[in-house]
């Protein structure tokens, strides 16, 4: 008994590893990222400390004099620098001339000191000029320090007399990396656009789900149920096409249909209507097409589930009802629908979760337009975190948005499990109850 339990654990280990790596970790990482202000500018792997003119703007208000002093780039030809240059192994004449003619000189900018070095009798190569000038750099401006300690020791070496509090202010204002924050959530809560996006998402899920994924799917299943087997199979096969066509091609076909130069415009042109982009003409049009595009794909799954469920209804019930003189509508109402309760619930639940997270068809068709009218939550998260024209990828905010989706998804899943009463569901086949 004991050994079989161990064996069970061993057998399940690969699956457990996969679950942790590919399901749990992304969620955990999303949660972690969502608590940061990570962007392209802060990087992902962590920042450094850099006293740069842009960070000095913030420092100026806290300690103007020190900020002004730090802003000074200084290149000083001193003995320490000369010794360092000697260590580089360049022509000895270079150091000798620097020592003889330039010791004690201070240059305000790197280009100035490099111009002087280039004028030496034994003109060094560009690479050597750069190496030499660096040895005389006596400023912290634009230098990147990996840690606070390095920054503080450089400041100490340059004679900045800073209190520990001042040092912390300097460190804080010059840090280039990301920090922990809950601002993403307050930004989401306060942004009017986020509310709109949330509304769009609810609208999108509700429309596609009720009109197509469940409603139309049920209609298709019932139609085909009453058809002879061969036409029924052909009909179902046709409705599977949107599902099996590559999504890019499928959406392109819709675009061709609805663009200014597309089929609808050409057709309407015959009746004197000016061509227009029906897909993006108004928010209503965009919604109409977004729902159709997604609905035609989504209807097939419900259709298959419902069809097979209907096949499981004992034929005798239909025969008996026919004998009793029941109409088609009465058969649907009193035989089919009551027994379809669980498949309908299942499709509703499954498709809600799938619609919540899906955005690729919208991305390809309208990219959220016009005027962000069809921007749904998942698409907005993608735009924010991974793809926008300005190239400023806000990983932290995007992750926070994704986390909201995860939370909604998990909550709904739990709710559905409860509705389904999972224990009962697996106990006995409900459809043959």
């Amino acid at each position, binding site marked *: 008994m004991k050994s079989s339990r161990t064996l069970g654990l061993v057998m399940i280990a690969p699956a457990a590893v996969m679950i942790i790596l590919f399901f749990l970790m992304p969620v955990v990482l999303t949660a972690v990222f969502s608590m940061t202000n990570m*962007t392209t500018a802060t990087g992902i792997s962590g920042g450094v400390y850099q006293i740069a003119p842009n960070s000095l703007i913030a420092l100026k208000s806290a300690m103007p004099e020190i900020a002004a002093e730090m802003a000074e780039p200084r290149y000083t030809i001193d003995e320490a620098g000369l010794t360092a240059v000697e260590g580089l192994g360049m022509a000895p004449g270079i150091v000798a001339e620097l020592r003889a003619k330039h010791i004690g000189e201070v240059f305000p900018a790197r280009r100035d000191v490099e111009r002087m070095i280039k004028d030496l009798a034994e003109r060094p190569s560009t690479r050597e000029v750069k190496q030499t000038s660096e040895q005389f750099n006596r400023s912290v401006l634009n230098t990147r320090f990996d840690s606070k300690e390095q920054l503080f020791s450089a400041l100490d070496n340059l004679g900045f007399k800073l209190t520990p509090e001042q040092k912390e202010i300097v460190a804080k204002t010059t840090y*280039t990396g990301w920090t922990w924050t809950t601002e993403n959530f307050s*930004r989401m809560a306060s942004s009017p656009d986020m509310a709109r996006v949330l509304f769009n998402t609810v609208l999108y899920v509700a429309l596609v789900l009720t009109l197509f994924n469940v409603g139309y799917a049920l209609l298709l299943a019932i139609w085909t149920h009453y058809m002879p087997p061969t036409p029924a199979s052909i009909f179902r096969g046709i409705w599977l096409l949107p599902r099996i066509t590559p999504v890019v091609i499928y959406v392109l076909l819709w675009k061709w249909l609805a663009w200014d130069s597309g089929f609808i415009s050409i057709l309407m042109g015959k009746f004197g209507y000016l061509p*227009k982009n029906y897909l993006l003409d108004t928010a209503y049009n965009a919604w109409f097409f977004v729902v159709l595009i997604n609905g035609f794909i989504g209807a097939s799954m419900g259709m298959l589930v419902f069809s097979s469920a209907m096949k499981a209804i004992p034929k005798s019930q239909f025969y008996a009802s026919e004998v009793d003189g029941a109409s088609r509508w009465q058969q649907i109402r009193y035989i089919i629908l009551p027994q379809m309760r669980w498949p309908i619930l299942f499709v509703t639940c499954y498709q809600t979760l799938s619609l919540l997270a899906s955005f690729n068809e919208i991305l390809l068709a309208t990219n959220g337009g016009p005027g962000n009218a069809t921007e749904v939550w998942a698409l907005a998260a993608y735009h924010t975190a991974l793809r926008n024209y300005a*190239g400023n*990828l806000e990983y932290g905010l995007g992750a926070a948005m994704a986390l909201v989706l995860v939370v909604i998804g998990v909550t709904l899943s739990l709710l559905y499990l409860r509705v389904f009463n999972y224990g009962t569901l697996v106990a006995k086949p409900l459809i043959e109850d």
Partner: protein
Amino acid sequence: MTILPTLKSLAVAAAILASSSAIALAKDVHISVWAGGTGPNDVYRLDAIEIAAQQLQREAALKGEDLKITVEKKPYSAWEDFKQALTLAAEAKTAPNIVVSGHEDIAPWSQAGLIVPIEDYVDLDSWPLSDIYENLLKIASYNGTVYGIPQDAESRPMFFWKPYMKAIGYSDADLDALPQSVQDGKYTMKNLLEDAKKMQDKGLVQPGYGFYPRTSNGPDYWQFYTSFGGTMEEGGKLVFDKAAMTRTYQFFADAVKSGVTKKNHIGMPGDQWWKEVATGKAGIWDGGTWHYARLVNQEGLKDFFGNVIFTLIPAGEGGKANTLTHPLVYLLTAGHDKEDTEIAAQLIKIASEPRTNALHAVKSAHLGISKSESTVDFYSADRWTREATERLLPHANAMPNNSDFGKYWNIMWKNLEASWTGAKTVDAAVGDAESELKSTLGDKIVIR
């Protein structure tokens, strides 16, 4: 008799020594270069690096080094894909050696440590770098450090379809004077909308085709903000001028309301837009200097100067006529072997020589990067580059190199699109932009 074998053996020894020293100095370097926004006219962004590699190999050979450089080129036509790919590759330490991107990326990428300053590797005082326009080099800098070398310059003019302008009453002399009139602020945005309307009312263009602006997000829209008196950055801080932004949003809302611009204009297929402006389906539109190459090379507009006149973006209320230059820059990415980065920097330097850069300028209808490029006959003989350089470049602004500008830009665009399509009123859009900017950027942006 004995001297000959000795000489022979000496010669063999010398040959062996020579060959072994050659082996010792042989160096195979692999340089990868990626370029964003690169269509068929812009191939020299990448090819120039290949040309430079040939030159550097020859220079190395003269110094007795056997340097072999392989250049791997990767063009990206769209910006979104390119920036996503580059950012993620750089974070994963697999970035190419050289990147050609917009100057506005310098701030965030340098702060994140994805790129290294090119001034650490090249001598800016030596030709051809010393000859590059000072303002372009400034645009390629951040925090007082030169990070990139300008790969091209351009500006974004307003285009007018000449035959329609004539049809609504402009004489040839009026049209010749139009660029100056725009520059002097006599011809304004208001006049532009009026003319666009006239073109439609006369049936010259279909409704919605009078003013036919860019169909997607882009730097172009900052020009309109400048036209209406807006400032993007001041003293290192971003600026959101509410009044100017309101006027900008209102301008597009008015254009839609009066029917000269389509409500569904944004997001329309790019190819369709190109075809329409090249065939005179649109009356007035804005674009970039490089549009000339596309219109003439790909879209079949043979008599460009006979059909099109170009000017600065006219002044709006409270602003001035302007144009925006958006130089792409050669950047060096971090995380590579220092010697490879040095070679990459050398390649960028050589690729910036006037004759090589002129290949890109003429083929893609971008503008030159250096003073002496204007003296290259091949460049100056090209009417478009010559006229565009003279007429536009002196008035060109640039977007700020600020690590937070991208956030500002996204918020500005999102609300412009919303007010354009009527999803929000202009006031609501400006209000939403303001509140989002406040919560996003805090004291990093001045709102006035």
